[in-house]
């Protein structure tokens, strides 16, 4: 286990220094493999691994879902989604924050990125909340937290990556994410209500919406809902593969964008497509690096040494999962979501399989933990995104604002442990 642990330590140090995560992971993987098998083998392994992953049909789902999200982002749906949610929730205490949660959930249903969700919603939801004198902490906290719904409510890029690393069915994982996603929405709404119940001045009720605005806003709900049902329904009914669903989803998202007056010039098409390709490339460099690194870790025998350790500790399957969750929470402080999935899951894969842990359920648990990592200090990517879009917000206020939502995610985690059916019920019928 020594070479593998050394590899992890060196990798973390390199990342701390600022070396690009993908390149650092790749190099540590190559050098580690070379230490065990020699450089020629390590180098040719790297070439082969990169080329095979780059041509892995299952991975083609990633650029297509990213593209779908980019089209949706360009469609500027967030304004109308927010108004539509406001029409339903605005009149309650904390109504604007409640609307933010619901609008983020709607956006997440057609976009697999939590950062995109947080970024687009910040622009739309902060100004009205300021207008109604909402506290900055509730306003920004509700957006940063609700943005994390993007990776639980399908389509979700992290769920795809988990599926590939853990060799699970992407479709089943997407369907498994639906109920936990809804549970989170409910708990987030509860967190908002709790906050305004304790401090009513944090979030007063809003005024009723102008009927014309309301009518226009509600019109956006149908295309979004239809696209979600088409993509998810197609996967659920095994009408098409996840890759095909992503292709259709991207096409539908482009139509929505067109219908709303965007994508009307060639330049706009090129920049949107190139943007999606850039996001894809940044992700794949990390994926390539992590998969080469995983070859080294597997060769070092660490995953199997861990089996012995777990045996000697007499860890129950639940105990094992709790231990992994603890490590994942810790890693969430250093790496962002993709890094956790790619580095942690392969190490524990044999142990999890041997303990008979339901890997679909475990995927949902891990993604829930990465959601936590997106809003907890010191990294908390979503918090930074909200801050980047609204630079005059204080970072400390945003972190204070997400605290009730961190509580909500922890409650969701406990509930999913106690009632695994929340994650496993729907995929069972596929």
């Amino acid at each position, binding site marked *: 286990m020594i070479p593998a642990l050394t590899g992890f330590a060196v990798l973390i140090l390199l990342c701390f220094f600022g070396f*690009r995560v993908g*390149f650092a992971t790749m190099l540590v993987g190559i050098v580690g493999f070379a230490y065990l098998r020699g450089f020629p083998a390590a180098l*040719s392994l*790297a070439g082969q691994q990169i080329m095979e992953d780059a041509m892995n049909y299952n991975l083609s789902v990633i650029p297509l879902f990213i593209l779908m999200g980019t089209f949706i982002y360009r469609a500027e749906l967030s304004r109308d989604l927010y108004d539509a949610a406001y029409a339903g929730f605005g009149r309650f205490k904390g109504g604007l924050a409640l609307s933010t949660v619901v609008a983020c959930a709607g956006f997440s249903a057609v976009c697999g990125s939590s950062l995109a969700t947080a*970024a687009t919603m910040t622009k739309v939801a902060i100004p009205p909340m300021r207008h109604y004198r909402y506290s900055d902490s509730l306003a920004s906290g509700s957006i940063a937290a609700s943005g994390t719904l993007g990776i639980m409510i399908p389509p979700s890029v992290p769920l795809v990556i988990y599926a590939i690393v853990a060799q699970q069915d992407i479709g089943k994982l997407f369907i498994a994410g639906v109920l936990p996603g809804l549970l989170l929405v409910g708990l987030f709404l509860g967190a908002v209500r709790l906050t305004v119940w304790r401090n009513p001045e944090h979030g007063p009720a809003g005024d009723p919406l102008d009927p014309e605005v309301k009518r226009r806003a509600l019109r956006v709900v149908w295309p979004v809902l239809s696209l979600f049902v088409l993509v998810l329904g197609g996967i659920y009914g095994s009408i098409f593969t996840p890759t095909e669903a992503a*292709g259709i989803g991207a096409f539908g998202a482009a139509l929505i964008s067109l219908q709303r007056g965007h994508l009307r010039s060639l330049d706009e098409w090129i920049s949107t*497509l190139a943007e999606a390709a850039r996001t894809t490339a940044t992700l794949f*460099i990390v994926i390539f690096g992590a998969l080469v690194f995983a070859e080294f870790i597997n060769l070092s025998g660490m995953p199997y040494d861990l089996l012995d350790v777990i045996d000697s500790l007499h860890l129950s399957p639940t105990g094992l999962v709790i231990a992994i969750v603890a490590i994942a929470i810790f890693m969430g402080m250093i790496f962002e979501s993709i890094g956790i999935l790619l580095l942690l899951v392969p190490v524990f894969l044999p142990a999890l399989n041997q303990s008979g842990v339901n890997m679909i359920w475990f995927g949902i648990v891990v993604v829930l933990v990465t959601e936590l990592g997106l809003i907890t200090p010191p990294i908390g990517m979503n918090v930074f995104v909200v801050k980047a879009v609204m630079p005059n917000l204080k970072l400390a206020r945003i972190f204070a604002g997400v605290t009730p939502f961190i509580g909500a995610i922890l409650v969701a985690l406990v509930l999913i442990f106690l009632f695994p059916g929340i994650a496993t019920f729907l995929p069972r019928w596929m």
Partner: protein
Amino acid sequence: MRAFAQAVLPPLMRIAELVTAVLLFAMMMLTFADVVGRYVFTAPIFGAAEMIQFLLAMTIFAGLCLVNARDEHITVELFEVQLDHIMPHAVRRIIIQLFSVGVMAIIAYQLYQYALDAEKIGTRTIVLEWPLAAVSFTVAGLSVVSLIMQVLGLLLARESHGIEDLGNRL
């Protein structure tokens, strides 16, 4: 050198944007047309899955040209402030960039080796029977271009502001 990079990089970026856009668009349309063909006309596109595989590899490495040129890679920004106290920011940046260029060079070289092997063995894809070497050489070529663009980007010292940029570019 800097003037050279200044003159060459922008048109290269424009071409790379165009190429990635065409590749990704083709990928989307191909999956869409394949499904519509299958269910509406009971005529799926022959070998669509293999074409998508090829498009995926090319999209990634064409996109990498843009990412490398602007150094938009994922980083851990936990100790930025502390590190800037220990070592001048510019020095650290150059070390980081040279590291990236080095690893990228290894990747490009190994992809080229892979392509040479594929050509020697004469591997063909199962359904379309296309030579694997063709796509491998294309991908290796793209990775070389991305390496060149990475160096040009380094010469221009164009710094991505990481997370602060995110809001604008998502």
